């Protein structure tokens, strides 16, 4: 005879924490940085760099976004959201004070503790730079724990570079370099006009004691991976975040899978060693 488990009330994992939009700032023409505060003090939301959460635009739906803030600073939950679809469109319409909801945090994170003492190369393209911001914040807040830091941020155009106002701060600490590049410049741009993989080849960072963290559009990730391999980086030294179409974040809807792995639960942070066999599927 099969015994019954005592019935317990299971919280519905699809119901977000109620939250309030406290600020909404334009990062680029189509990217905004949202700051959210949870409405109920009892809701727990502890997270690490690399993790993501679903943000609701009630009436339209919800979407997954990488957390762009760090938990320990207690400055609210921040998300950089690019306007590409119905949910992001609706989010962009929200005014500070608007009610929203957050579900998360989900996924794994960058094991920054494991990287202590290493040289870190942070490579991000476009909106893909958002999940790298907490990585940078954490490393710079604990600057002495890490070796050389190279930050490479690229975008289609100068006005698409996310977090431009923070570049100067990032470059201030010693042994820290910020390199910017764009696919196409404009009248006010004096910097590089080149693709990220090419800039990487030019800068030629040494793989010795180094970890490369990449985040960006799939095509950029693919080409950057190749360049890093050429530079001698091993599969374990390359860490990336993958983007997948997600609906639940809970490892249920089986939409974001790469092979048997869920981007939402087993990722989004993967070493190249973990995904090398699936990279063509991605």
């Amino acid at each position: 005879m099969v015994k019954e488990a005592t019935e317990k009330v299971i919280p519905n994992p699809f119901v977000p924490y109620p939250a309030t939009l406290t600020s909404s700032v334009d990062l680029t023409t189509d990217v905004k940085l949202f700051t959210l505060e949870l409405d109920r003090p009892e809701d727990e939301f502890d997270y690490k760099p690399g993790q993501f959460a679903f943000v609701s635009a009630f009436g339209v739906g919800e979407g997954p976004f990488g957390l762009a803030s760090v938990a320990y600073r207690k400055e609210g939950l921040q998300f950089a959201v690019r306007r590409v679809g119905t949910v992001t469109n609706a989010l962009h319409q929200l005014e500070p004070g608007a009610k929203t909801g957050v579900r998360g945090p989900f996924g794994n994170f960058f094991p920054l503790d494991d990287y202590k003492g290493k040289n870190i190369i942070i490579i991000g393209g476009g909106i893909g730079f958002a999940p790298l911001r907490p990585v940078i914040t954490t490393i710079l807040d604990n600057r002495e724990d890490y070796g050389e830091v190279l930050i490479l941020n690229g975008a289609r155009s100068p006005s698409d570079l996310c977090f431009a106002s923070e570049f100067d701060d990032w470059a201030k600490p010693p042994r820290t370099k910020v390199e910017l590049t764009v696919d196409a410049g404009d009248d006010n741009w004096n910097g590089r006009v080149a693709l990220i993989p090419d800039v990487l080849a030019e800068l030629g960072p040494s793989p010795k004691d180094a970890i490369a963290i990449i985040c960006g559009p799939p095509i950029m990730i693919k080409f950057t991976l190749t360049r890093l391999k050429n530079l001698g980086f091993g599969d374990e030294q390359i860490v990336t975040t993958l983007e997948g179409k997600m609906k639940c974040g809970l490892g249920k809807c089986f939409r974001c899978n790469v092979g048997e792995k869920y981007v939402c639960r087993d990722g989004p942070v993967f070493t190249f060693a973990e995904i090398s066999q699936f990279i063509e599927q991605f």
Partner: protein
Amino acid sequence: MSRIGVFVCHCGTNIGGIVNVPEVVEAAKAMPLVAYADENKYTCSEVGQGSIRDAIREQKLDRVVVAACSPRMHENTFRKTVATAGLNPYLLEIANLREHCSWVHSDSKKATAKAIDHVRMAVAKVARHESLFPKQVGLTKRALVIGGGITGIQAALDIASAGHEVVLVEKEPSVGGRMSQLDKTFPTLDCSACILTPKMVDVAQHPNITLLSYSEVKEVRGFVGNFEVDILKKAKMVDHKTCTGCGTCWQKCPEKVTSEFDLGLGQRTAIYIPFAQAVPNKPVIDMENCRYQKYLKWTQTEEGKKPPECRICEKLCPTKSIAWEQQEEIVTEKFGALVVATGFKTFDHSVYGEYGAGRYPDVISSLQLERLMSAAGPTEGEVLRPSDNTHPKNIVFIQCVGSRDDKVGRPYCSKVCCMYTAKHAIMLKEHDPEVQCYVFYIDIRAGGKDFEEFARRAQDESGAVYLRGRVSQIYQDGKTLKVLGEDSLIGRPVEIDADLVVLATGMEASEDADRLAQTLHISYNIYNFLIEAHPKLRPVETQTDGVFVAGAAVGPRDIPDCVAHGSAAAAKVIGLLSQDSLTTDPLTAIVAPMKCVGCFACKAVCPFNAIEEQTTRDGRIIASVNESLCKGCGLCVVACRPGAINLRGFTNQQLLSEVMTLVRR
């Protein structure tokens, strides 16, 4: 981010008297994305507009709904208002609370509910508005005038005098049109040729005018400022560059044929100019009738009698200008604006059995009478009966032949017939005091400067007998024509023995007017008269920007009207061509390339040829919209199943939002 401001207008008591405006304002405040709502006594007043501008700045509004009168009234006003406050003028939507609500409903509660719904829909729509920017396109500063009658001549001269190049296309060998066939003009009785000929000569001599006689417009592509027109130049068989118009050829040509210009009453030669004052005063060869052409045709089959080889013109031409090798050719020219002045033709009276169905030689049309009266006409101005060349004494005029007659599908009034018949009666009496004129009429329409006096003169001074009534039958009785009719004023049948009967044939749209209209994408009515953009306020514009209409092509009108009309069209063209670039309306269709399947249903339904084919980087052939041609009708949007085309300002999203906000309110 959307911060919508809603401004509800009382319009004095026009709206506020029925619609509870404060309630609408409160309801608006509760609508999604509405950041601000307020009311005005008169929103269109300077104070009202100022309050919108202030609110946009103070409340950081990014979209505005004005709930007031019809958008057809003040949409432009408020677009300018929001623009002065720094918003894109297209981030505005009007909710119509006056014409569509307060003025037609008396139940205040229901009207208020409807007003709230209309505001709701406007809010839903404006939330999806995007900033739109008119584009600038260059233009070709040349005009094409189609039709070389008095209207076209006037338009061409005016445009040319303003410094723009003009091409004047005339399908006949000479310009002049119908006016050149007239003897005198009413009500002043000045000689038609005397006032027209100088203008014709001006056309020929004006440095800015290129005259393409014996030519027709075949195809028109492009759009305002940038039309590309294919013009067919028919083969004249005479090199007009070398021809001096000495006249030897047409004087010596042995082949005589009926003259079209004289409407069958006279003859011309196979190589000819249509009339003495023709411009250009250089001949063309009528290929149908030329003896050499007939000979050439014969050599191909050698059937029947061998015609003479002739070629007399060629032999006698002092400048060797006969060009047998000439072919018709199509030239393509670019223009910024087009004027259509294709005029009219006269009604063919042979459909009237009761008037003899064209069988009696002495039943003629009034235009034929003009030729008989003309000093340059076949009888050199002597009015002679076609049947026996005698002077007619009793002359009957019948009005409204092919006008005001549903029976023949011409219910409209041709406007000029009453007056030219009066002119005829006066002139005939002057020519020959023994003449007695009778005029069968329905009404006398003499609206116009000096017209009524003129019509009176025909009766009072020239003794024409006006009989109100229709003619039921005409029959030939020996040399006389028996005209049976009715004088409806005294209610008695009348019978008149006439020597000549003149039918006041009405005006019809010229041959091919419909084909030309289709080519130009302008509309025409069931009588093939062209339709102006607005009958009162835009009388020479059409629905196709850059295409103007003038003269009798639009509907029956007399010479002074035609001249005024031609000048009006010219003024519009000059205004257009004086710009350095043109602004296009941004409410056009737009294709989402990733969604287009390339079925081109859009292209099939587009009335403006605005859909073009484009190859994507991955090799797909997809649609794209030429925004200069697109008029924003949205036909393509509905034809597009995959939803790849949208119409700016009336997007699928916007219309659906309006519906959804209404049904799920």
